[in-house]
């Protein structure tokens, strides 16, 4: 590890009223794999996206090799030697592999306006070979390759031009074990060549094993940097979460029995290419957790219960025998669903808070099919206030709210519906700690009222903290089940996930 290559000075960024990054200053050295960790909403992704030109900086600056870094987009960042492998899909459909690798930087293959496709393909093939990805055909359409191969192509795309700094943002969560091995291999190679890697991941074991130093962000602020060889998972968690909150964050009861009354019965549910033969029961007043890696299929289970899956086979039945096969049926029979894809599925962002809260209950709010505006406003106001949504009024569009408040509106609509079975998928993702605590408190309240909750989450801590039972899924099938217990640890769960 060598001298400092990158300095961040007082970086700040806000989105509307949400302060995503607050006055963060950090240093990174040459030849280092520097881990960056923090809970969801801690600001890590926003921080690196400013470095890479995806977002603009509100105030503060980055100094690369002593010079201030001014980049307006990813290609400019690349030119300065900074690149990023993003969390979501970073390649474009409809283009070939070679075109994707060189997107934005084709000029070296262009003479007099003509693109030398053959040369481009040849160079792409050479690079793919060099990286050990020879099984990928440079001239083929990228749509032929599945997500993991497309991520491998992204690795080539982000590093072939020898950038000085490579940011890897939560890439490993989406990769299989093989894919991860490939990634680690290249990470080490890049570090040994004297370059720097900023590695973001939720998997603390992986972070401790493969990084040299680890920095922690919490709620948008910089907390501390520790040496990986000295770090322990517990200490990292403490830094991430902050000790005062951890104890009263989740439920504190253990050993309370759950009623034996089944409210929902899932038998042999399968969705092609997603889940296979899922069967379980949900009991009254229970909080049932689902955990696993991103692609294990648990998110599809949530959809399947709600009647939102396509081509689902098997049965989802209520205690009274009603079969749940469609969303309207699910809602009518008191099932609620808060999707992981909040902005697209849980809530209509370009619509008012009122409309969002009343929609699932709209049939009941009508007297002889007629809706009265006053009644609707009352209804919306009541539930928005119940959960303390920070808003200027129910007419306000949801798009103007912060992530935490959006999620509160989502929950408000289902509480307004008084649903008995509530499926929550990643309910606290990207939400700041205070609102998280509110949501956990809400879940406990609902449980006390006899409602049943299914919580699907990629955050092992919250599963351990909140659930009566945890079902672990792997590769589309159920791979383990755990009962609530103080002695239950992350390792126990992870063992069944990978």
């Amino acid at each position, binding site marked *: 590890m060598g001298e400092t290559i990158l300095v961040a000075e007082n970086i700040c960024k806000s989105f509307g009223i949400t302060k995503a990054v607050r006055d963060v200053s950090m240093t990174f050295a040459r030849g280092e794999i520097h881990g960056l960790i923090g809970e969801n909403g801690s600001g890590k992704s926003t921080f690196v996206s400013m470095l890479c030109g995806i977002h603009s900086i509100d105030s503060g600056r980055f100094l690369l090799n002593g010079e201030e870094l001014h980049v307006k987009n990813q290609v400019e960042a690349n030119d300065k030697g900074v690149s990023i492998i993003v969390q979501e899909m*970073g390649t474009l*459909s*409809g283009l070939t592999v070679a075109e994707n690798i060189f997107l*934005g930087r084709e000029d070296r293959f*262009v003479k007099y*306006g003509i693109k030398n496709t053959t040369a481009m393909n040849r160079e792409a093939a050479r690079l793919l070979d060099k990286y050990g990805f020879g099984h990928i055909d440079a001239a*083929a359409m990228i749509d032929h390759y599945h997500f993991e191969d497309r991520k491998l192509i992204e690795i080539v795309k982000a590093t072939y031009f020898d950038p000085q700094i490579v940011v890897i943002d939560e890439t490993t969560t989406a990769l299989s074990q093989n894919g991860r091995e490939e990634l680690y291999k290249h990470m080490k190679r890049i570090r040994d060549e004297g370059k720097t890697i900023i590695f973001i991941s939720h998997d603390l074991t992986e972070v401790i094993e493969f990084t040299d130093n680890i920095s922690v962000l919490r709620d948008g602020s910089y907390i501390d940097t520790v040496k990986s060889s000295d770090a322990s998972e517990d200490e990292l968690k403490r830094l991430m979460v902050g000790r005062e909150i951890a104890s009263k964050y989740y439920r504190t009861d253990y050993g309370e029995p759950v009623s034996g009354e089944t409210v929902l019965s899932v038998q042999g549910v399968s969705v092609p290419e997603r889940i296979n033969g899922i069967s379980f029961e949900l009991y009254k007043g229970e909080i049932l957790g689902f955990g696993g890696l991103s692609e294990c299929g648990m998110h599809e289970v949530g959809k399947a219960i709600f009647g939102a899956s396509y081509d689902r086979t098997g049965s989802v039945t209520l205690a009274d025998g009603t079969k749940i096969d469609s969303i309207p049926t699910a809602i009518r029979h008191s099932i609620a669903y808060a999707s992981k894809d909040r902005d697209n599925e849980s809530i209509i962002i370009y619509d008012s808070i009122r409309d969002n809260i009343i929609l699932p209950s709209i049939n009941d709010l009508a007297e002889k099919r007629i809706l009265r505006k006053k009644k609707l406003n009352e209804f919306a106001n009541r539930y928005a206030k119940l959960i303390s949504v920070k808003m200027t009024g129910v007419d306000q569009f949801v798009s103007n709210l912060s992530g935490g408040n959006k999620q509160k509106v989502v929950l408000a609509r289902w509480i307004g519906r008084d649903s008995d079975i509530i499926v929550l998928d990643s309910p606290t993702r990207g939400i700041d700690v205070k609102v998280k605590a509110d949501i956990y408190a809400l879940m406990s309240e609902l449980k006390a009222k006899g409602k049943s909750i299914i919580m699907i989450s990629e955050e092992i801590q919250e599963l351990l903290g909140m659930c009566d039972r945890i079902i672990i899924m792997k590769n589309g099938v159920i791979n383990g089940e755990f009962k609530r217990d103080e002695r239950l640890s992350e390792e126990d769960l992870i063992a069944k996930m990978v």
Partner: protein
Amino acid sequence: MSIGKRLNELKKNELFGRFYGIMLLLLLAVFFWAVFKILTPDNFGTLEKTYYYLQSSIIYSVGACGFYFIVVMGLFDFSIGANVVLSAIIGVTLSKQFGYPGLLIGAVLCGLAIGLCNGVIYAKLRIPSMIVTVGLMLIFECVAYFASGGEKQSLDPSLQFFGHAPGNMILALIAFLLTFFILKYTKIGTYCYAIGSDEYVAKNMGINVNKYKILGFVLLHGFVGIMAVLSVSFGTSMTALTGMATMSRNFTPLMGTFFGLAFRKYGTPVTAMVIGEFIISIIFNGFIALGAPTTIQNVVTGAALLLIVAITTKPAKGAVVK
């Protein structure tokens, strides 16, 4: 592997994919030709007549090629028809003084200028392309009217080289080769697809999205300028009409574009557009040969296009289509 799976695997191979796509199109063409030949063997389908069907279709194929750049990016343009009229009139007017160069350069330059105008207004005003081109269509119709003084503009008989073989075929072929070349061998070809695929990511990759959208409009209308030359040479005259009369000219080229889009995955959009328009032309003329009134044409166009799009559109499950 079952036959179905094997076929799918093969389809991914570039060369086979192309072959498969073209064969499918040719089969369709032969099929429709055969249907009408059987129904009315005397009125339809002689070699000479079929050649004629082809010639009348390539005018629209050229327009379809231009349209393709725009539609791939997710944009639309209602002013194509107005462009054909305006560019044709400019071309004819200039041809009176400058002969063939006047006709060609006048029409194409006019087209390019319209394209630039559309592109810049679209980019500056930030109005959806569908809406802004409705307004522009109204305006261009009037400009054409003023330019021609409301009178019919006739092309001198000595200048009608592009109205029949081989002139029209040569010009059209140049247009097709140009489209193919641009799509495959220039940056704009790649960027058109990139912008259409995910505009936000493309922008992040440093692609100047606005610049390439404007370029797309310029290309579109440049090709429409060529289409105007072919059109006016074929019909020997052009009259400017207002009242949104040019709307009807927008849609026949659009049909070819849909063929191109549908067969894009086989890697042969240009060929698909050419053969596609040819198929439509066969169907038209088939009905006419059957003695159906010319009004039937529109019924056929509408039904054929609807069926083709219905069969070839395959959006992902749960995708939102407006």
